């Protein structure tokens, strides 16, 4: 691997992200911010939801924010750059194996997803306190899960970005991302589905369910959650699977 070229590709993405900082901030944080405000503050404050919901909601919002950002940051530029303008061509011609060009996109997306996830915590804390009860008992485990979640969202972005055409972006959101978010144990814990046994099994095919439950297990362990070994195994598996599929699709798009 050519480290200099890899860093230069990363520097290019950082430069473009810096240039688009303001729209990027709105795109990343507006939705989770509004969600936290309405569900955590307004609904709890008006008595429709219990006060404990604040703590339950935060890891779910963090998962959504990370997954949405990771997928968006990798998939959207790729969809555009592989279309008619072939903007990515110059990077494919850089003296580095083209798999690394794809990996660089994943790393850039992973960093953005991490930032998006970690910024939700202080943001939510400001909106939701008092009453927000975070108990970070094992920081190493939290970092590990956060990295795995950011990884699967960026790898998912690679797989989707290299499989979806520009005219199907809307479909990608309504057919893939929206069901993923609603069936991803984001607004409710997995244990809350015990009255819906079929649904409870069904959501286990959704990587976001493990992301929400993993963050819940490390940030608010006072609530029951999926077993940690299962969460870690599933997230690792999704990371590897989506990376392999993403790289295969990337090669198909890059070389005719």
């Amino acid at each position, binding site marked *: 691997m*050519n480290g*200099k*070229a890899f860093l*230069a*590709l990363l*520097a*290019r993405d950082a*430069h*473009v992200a810096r*240039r*688009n900082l303001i729209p990027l901030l709105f795109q990343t944080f507006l939705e989770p911010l509004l969600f936290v405000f309405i569900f955590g503050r307004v609904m709890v404050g008006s008595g429709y939801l219990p006060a404990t919901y604040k703590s339950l909601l935060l890891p779910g919002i963090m998962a959504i924010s990370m997954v949405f950002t990771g997928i968006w940051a990798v998939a959207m530029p790729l969809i555009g750059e592989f279309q*008619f*303008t*072939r*903007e990515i*061509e*110059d*990077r*494919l*011609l*850089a*003296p*580095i*194996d*083209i798999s690394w060009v794809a990996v660089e996109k994943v790393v850039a997306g992973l960093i953005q997803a991490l930032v998006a996830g970690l910024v939700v915590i202080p943001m939510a804390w400001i909106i939701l306190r008092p009453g927000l009860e975070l108990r970070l008992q094992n920081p190493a485990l939290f970092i590990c899960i956060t990295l795995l979640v950011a990884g699967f969202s960026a790898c998912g972005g690679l797989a989707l970005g290299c499989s979806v055409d520009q005219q199907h972006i809307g479909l990608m959101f309504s057919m893939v991302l929206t069901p993923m978010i609603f069936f991803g144990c984001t607004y409710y814990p997995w244990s809350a589905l015990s009255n819906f046994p079929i649904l409870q099994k069904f959501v286990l095919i959704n990587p976001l369910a493990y992301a929400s439950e993993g963050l819940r297990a490390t940030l608010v362990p006072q609530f029951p959650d999926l077993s940690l070994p299962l969460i870690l195994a599933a997230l690792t598996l999704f990371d590897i699977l989506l990376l392999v599929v993403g790289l295969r699709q990337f090669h198909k798009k*890059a*070389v*005719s």
Partner: protein
Amino acid sequence: MDSAIRTRDLRKVYNAQPPAAAGRSDSQDQSRRKKESKPQIIALDGIDLDVAPGQIFGLLGPNGAGKSTTVGILTTRVRPTSGTAWIGPHDVWRDQTAAKRLIGVVAQRPNLDFSLTAREILLFHGAYFGLNSQERAERAWVLLERFKLTDRADQLVRGFSGGMMQRVSLARAMMHDPQVLFLDEPGAGLDPQTRLLLWEIIRDYNQKGRTVLLTTHNMEEADALCQQLAIIDHGKIIAAGSPRELKASIPGGFLLRLRFAERPDSLIDGLGKLSGVTEVRPSGDTGVDVYAGRGGSLIPEVVNTAAGCGVELSDVHISEPSLENLFLHHTGRSLRE
């Protein structure tokens, strides 16, 4: 000396639907096509190229002849179905990274990074190729100046005209000073002034000992720039040599495209017997292509011969020895068709 570019028996077959207008199709044909879900299109059919270092080499041919596919394979963008392609000592498809270090590429369609300014495009390109920041800044400055882009250097390229984008593309390809420069239809869609600037820059780059391979369907461009040419059609090389050699290989040199009211056999025989005529070919329904060592001076004799056969000459077009005539001679079609 080793070749700068070498290919051996290069073939590329695409699995794709045939174009809707391709050929005549009866119902039997259609049912067969339905069974074959992915008909094959042969884009390259055994291309052998040898380009010596320091040459400007042209691939001349009509649209769809296989020029861009050849460039695509040599620049790691298109995987060959069979055959080998080498850049200097590197097999392009075994050692892609090493091959990519030696090449600069200007694609047929502008593929600039729309998120960046012209200067940033050059700077990041230099960074991909490991140039340090001082080298990058200096080379970018020199190239922007050379390509007359300094006044727009710090604007996003999204709003640039086609000609400006083409200049940025060429500047980018030269940024890491590659041994071999590939230009796919560099003059297409450019105004004459910009085209002349590009030609001058390409010649200067070549004078530094660099190899240039360009594709074109423009005879003037091929004639003006290239030291060696290969004429390509339907994925095959039909003639190769220097422009002078190629033009000298046209029988007679001049081509007279004649059209008559009708075309009896006696007319073809009569025209073939005129002095200086080397070849006579029927063309279309009532046309005749005459290859001859002279042009206009032959016309009175053509008129007399036609009158002797009882037919009238209705149209004459005389062209001097050119690559266009050479292509026509080999394929029976014009490059522009």
